[in-house]
Structure formats: C-alpha cells, structure tokens
C-alpha cells in the first residue's frame, strides 16, 4: 500500500485520543511485525496489525477509518503476548473501534443476526459481540 504522509494530513487529536483510550505509547513499536506474524486473522485484514500502529502514530485517521482491520480483530491477544516491546495492540484496536462506536455509529445491527443463529449462539457470543460492535 502507499500512503501520503504530510503535516497537513496528520491528525494530532486522533493520535492523542488513541493514546488516551489505549494507554499505550505508540512510539514503543519498532515495526518488527511479530504482531502481524502471530495474528490468526491477519490474512483477512486489508491493513496488517503492524501497519495499524504505524498509521496511528502518523495520525493518518482516514486510512484507518476506511480499513476493516479493527473490525476483524477478535482481541485474542496473540499480538500482545508476542510483542518484544510489551506493546498491547489489542488496546489500540479497541481505542480505534471506540472512536467510531462512541459517535453512535454501530458496526452491526442485532436484528440482522438470523433468528435461528440468535437461538443457537451461546450467551457469551452475544454479550461479547454486542459489546465490541455496538456503542
């Protein structure tokens, strides 16, 4: 992928909010890619976990907002336990999701889950899924 980096495109407010919500120091990452290598969902993402960190610290909010990556993450923490820098990417993914959800923009609508699936799903799937994908 190619991205344009310029001071005009940098969103300082976005960087501040991601840091505040995640509690993570984005500068810790040295882009080794262990997160992407260990992520079981990386193949289905359009922007890899490693790239998310780089885009976030460059303040490229639009690239991140247009990507489906944070909505594919299952918070399994394979990235966090394998990071040599002790960086918890799952918290950054959560922060980015919340920046959308807290604008009252839900990612899924419960009524779109088929009635049959709704009956069959274990409760923990509904509770955790609705907490991750609705505001």
């Amino acid at each position, binding site marked *: 992928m190619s991205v344009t980096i310029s001071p005009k495109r940098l969103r300082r407010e976005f960087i501040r909010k991601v840091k*505040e919500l*995640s509690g993570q120091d984005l500068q810790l990452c040295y882009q080794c890619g262990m997160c992407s290598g260990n992520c079981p*969902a990386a193949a289905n993402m359009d922007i890899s976990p490693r790239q998310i960190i780089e885009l976030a610290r460059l303040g490229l909010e639009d690239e991140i907002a247009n990507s489906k990556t944070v909505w594919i993450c*299952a918070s*399994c923490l394979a990235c966090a336990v394998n990071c040599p820098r002790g960086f918890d990417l799952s918290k950054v993914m959560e922060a980015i999701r919340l920046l959308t959800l807290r604008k009252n923009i839900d990612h899924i609508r419960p009524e779109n889950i088929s009635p049959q699936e709704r009956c069959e799903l274990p*409760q923990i*799937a509904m509770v955790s899924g609705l*907490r991750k994908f609705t505001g």
Partner: protein
Amino acid sequence: MSLAYYPGCTLKTKARNLEEPAVASMEVLGFKLEEISRWNCCGAVYSLAEDDLIHQVAPVRNLIRVKEQGKNELVTLCAFCLNTLKRANLLMKENTEKRDTINSFMNEEIDYSGEVKVVHLLEVLRDEIGWEALSQKVKLPLRELKIAPYYGCTLLRPREVAIDNVENPTILREFLKALGATPIDFPESTRCCGSYQIINNPDDISEYAQAILNSALSHGTEALVLTCPLCDYNLGRGQKELTNKQSGLREMPLFYFTQLLALALGLGPQVCHFELNYGSPESLLRKKNLLS
C-alpha cells in the same frame, strides 16, 4: 470442602454439558462447588479502554459477593468468565486510583481491593488435588482415546492472567494423562477460533475452524478437549458447515474437559449430556468401549 463457584450465563443454558459433569465430579473428589448467591453476568469480555470503568462494575460486583461470603477463592469453569473476572480483579488490586473510583461508585457495596483469588477448575485439579491423586480416583481410564487439547485464548492471554505457560501450556495434556487418555499435541492448540467475530464475520469463523480442525486431524487426534463454550460453538458450527459442504473434513467429537473427567471417574453418561455436543462423541466412546 466447599469452593465458591461462579457459573456464568452460558453454563446455565447452552453449556450445561460443561457445568453438570463438573459439579458431580468435584463431589466425588471431595469438593462442593457452591454457587455464589446473587451472581450476575461478568460482561464476557474485559474492557480494554482506559477510561471505561463502568464495564468493570459487573465483574467486580461478583467478586464482592465472594468477599461478603467470607471466601477468598472463586472457581470458574468458563474460560471467558475466568479471563474477565481475573483481569477485573487484577485492576482492583493494582490500580489504586481506578479502584477508589469504582468503590465509591458502588457505594451501596463493601469496598473491594482484589482480595479474592480467581482460579479455573483445571488449576484446582492441578494445584489442590494433583494429577497423581486424580489418577488414583479414575475408575474408567480413557485408554486408547487420542485427544488433542485446544486451549483457545482466554485461559492463556494476557500473560498476567494465564493459568499456564503462554507459549507451551501443558495443563490439559497432564489432565488427559491423569485420566488415562493419550494427549495429542498440535500447533494450533492456542490459536484463536475467532471468538465474538461469529456475530460479525461468520464466514471467517468457518475458515479459522477449518485450519484448527484440519491441523488436529492431521496430527492423528480422534477428538478435541475444550474449556470454552464459544470455542465449542465456533468449532462445532464450523465443522458442521464444512462437512455439509463436503470439504473432505472428517467429523470430530468436541468434548468439554469436565465431561471426560466425569466419565473417567465412573459417573456414567447421564451427567455428561453428550446430546449437547458436536461431532457425535457417543459413537467414538462406544467404539473405545467407554460407553455401553
């Protein structure tokens, strides 16, 4: 001996086959799993955002119930509940500022600062009973049953709440050995099944299930042993879909660890509720002369 026990929502409905064999087995082993009174949903996932304290209230309230009842240990069976309760407990123990805010928000409750130890039943079996003592209680050794442990995520990640080594867990392997079964290691045993993505990207879940199940089968396993109702659903549903599509995947029984425990302790199939399992476990058990 009585142990304070937190069942959680799913064990009372979809995963009765996880709970009922556990309660019966622990009775045989001399422990009574005593459900804490007035428990509520733990919230299923731990809140990862720094400013989100309201979602910590539900798990902390459960921990307060345990403290009120004069207990200092809480046993869980569901891997999701374990993770959420244990992480919330750690927050209350280590973050004084957030602890004070949560305590003053819940001003009708007693103050809480992480006094309760949250453990998984597997840890009770390992640390309080011991594999050797457990193996001596086995009446029906699960001989010739080749089973692969599938840990998923929440028993092992993050590191600070892991019940075993994060990279190379052995607790389920030791458990299976104590019951007389043959544990089969496979590299995907700690790979995520996709978790709550089932309500967002169900097609991805089938893909993840295929990778996990194929790997287990190619290592020569006859069944998987699980601890989490969501892993059970994702792998079971994925398996059903894949076998229907004639993908070449062979159907494989998925067991909860507590069902194998009850069976090995000689409690019979009644408490195990195999009818709720995926992958026809009864036909495999009959084949191995473990079920009449």
